[in-house]
């Protein structure tokens, strides 16, 4: 996983509540057996006017000019501003894969769905929870200023804005540690392999029917 330390980038608005993972990446693109290449189909049904399918040349598709990400001022955005309960619905990790593949590295929203929130950290994508009025204010600043940029310093847990006070944010210390160092969870968990084996031995004594039934 790529490290996340300090991110400076353009913020782009996704101004609706309850954005679901079907909207982030529609199901026809889930047939891929890879983790990459989903960026061109991020928000496919909102970005393009026609129906998308895997393997298509997206550069020739009709564009929905009204959709924020299609506006030149948000070109190259790496920070997504969003509303409450972002990423609800399906557990598909293709949603954070698509966001990262497109170029996003952080999301700012009042709340997230649990599975999406979890999946994001595992892919170097930082979902930050902010008070609703702060998010509102960032939406206003983003819309009022062309090329509005924010700087997110994960170590200091601060969002630096050009037009106001720094915004502090909370992050789970374990997830912060993994992001700052680009660490893979599996390697860390396997450092506890002895504890897992010990637990497993006791559990097998207690509930033997849970072992070996499927073979």
């Amino acid at each position: 996983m790529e490290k996340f330390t300090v991110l400076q980038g353009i913020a782009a608005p996704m101004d609706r509540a309850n954005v679901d993972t079907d909207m982030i990446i529609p199901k026809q693109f889930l047939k891929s057996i890879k983790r990459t290449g989903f960026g061109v189909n991020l928000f496919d049904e909102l970005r393009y006017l026609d129906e998308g399918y895997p393997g298509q040349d997206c550069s020739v598709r009709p564009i929905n000019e009204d959709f924020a990400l299609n506006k030149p001022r948000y070109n190259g955005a790496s920070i997504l501003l969003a509303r409450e309960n972002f990423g609800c619905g399906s557990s598909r990790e293709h949603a954070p894969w698509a966001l990262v593949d497109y170029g996003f590295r952080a999301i700012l929203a009042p709340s997230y769905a649990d599975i999406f929130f979890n999946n994001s950290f595992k892919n170097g994508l930082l979902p930050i929870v902010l008070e609703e009025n702060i998010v509102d204010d960032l939406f206003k600043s983003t819309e009022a200023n062309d090329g509005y940029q924010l700087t997110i310093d994960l170590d200091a847990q601060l969002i630096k804005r050009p037009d106001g006070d720094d915004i502090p944010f909370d992050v789970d210390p374990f997830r912060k540690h993994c992001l700052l160092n680009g660490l893979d969870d599996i390697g860390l968990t396997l450092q506890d392999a002895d504890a897992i084996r010990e637990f497993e031995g006791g559990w097998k004594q207690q509930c033997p029917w849970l072992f070996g039934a499927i073979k």
Partner: protein
Amino acid sequence: MAGKTLYDKLWDAHLVKQRDDGTALIYIDRQLLHEVTSPQAFEGLRLANRQPWRVDANLATPDHNVPTTSAERLAGVDGIEDETSRIQVKTLDENCDEFGIVEHGINDPGQGIVHVVGPEQGATLPGMTVVCGDSHTSTHGALGALAHGIGTSEVEHVLATQCLIQRKMKNMLVRVDGTLGAGVTPKDVVLAIIGKIGTAGGNGCAIEFGGQVFRDMSMEGRLTVCNMSIEAGARAGMVAVDDTTIEYVKGREYAPKGDDWGKAVAYWNTLHSDADAEFDIVVELDGTDIKPQVSWGTSPEMVLPVDATVPNPADESDPVKSNGISRALEYMGLEAGQDISSIPVDRVFIGSCTNSRLEDLREAAAVAKGRKVADSVKQVLIVPGSQAVKAKAEAEGLDKVFTDAGMEWREPGCSMCLAMNADKLGNGEHCASTSNRNFEGRQGFGGRTHLVSPAMAAAAAIAGHFTDVRQMMEA
């Protein structure tokens, strides 16, 4: 000290290690695998040169992509016409072969939707921790298990370590007392709950469904309710173990046998919240008041009783919500104030991990029996949840009831719930669907989904529009 909730007990029993930072390692007893969210996990294992920690903890079956017409199913995997779907199903076969994982392949008698197959085979049991790369894994909580959906990185993590890194969730109790009226089903109960608490209402929580309505409910009904916990934002939903649970599990293929059975039952009988357990959040509904439900919008919380009218955005004071209602009405092609029963239906889908079990099919067949699908309805798909459900339904003659009414009887799979295979809605078409999500485009580009029970879906198929199934039952 207060007693423990069911969730507390399941958590404590599986706690391998509590870390100082608040996260914990939780031992996982069962992982279900399907073709869509597993290929990248297996690839991850290969790249890191890792082996599964415990092969016998896993069970695989293809469901999301499989075609449901008998013609396309005949030739097995090679017969799948869509190349990308075929590759994905083949990849699951190859990965299971390579790593030694038991798989019920595309036409195996054990194949079906993972969340139908697990309980049906006794592969998911009371007291287990269950995961799957699918958000509807919450289904298995109906057995008194701690079950939830995970992402692909976590699928790989569980394969490699048999553990999940978790932070303990909050305890939420949804209590529904009273007695359900005739024609009101478990699906209506869960839709009414989601309508009340909203799609984010259970975020960060494990929900326990308690109260008279759930004590009276069959196991299949409880599976339907727990299935949609995620639509209320909760990763996990569960129901306490009782005689209904134990009767259901007894004799199933992978259920404990002999001496183990007695030991297991003794343990399972402890799997309920203590009388003095404290919940962080309690929500109460009166089951007697619940009517058949129909979703009108593009989020499962946008749901109302069948005798209601479509809401008006002008009546909502919160601008983000009002905006959401306006957008939903536009996408759904509905007018504010329109009667729900006036919404016409173009297609009907009865199936999905929510509502494709035998009782669901019986409920739909009771309405369809001796009636015909309305001329204005283009297609009614009946997709059993598993090969076993299909065989039992056919033995009871349900397939004949459906085909006599002008409905199509299909092969098991996820089908039009998410339209990864050929079963999908056309642009602008309204669908009465027994599935779980009415998101934009979910059942096909521009498709308009209305979530209902199997009985209400069958009634809509006959009437050509939404209608109160209770009136058809009186007729």
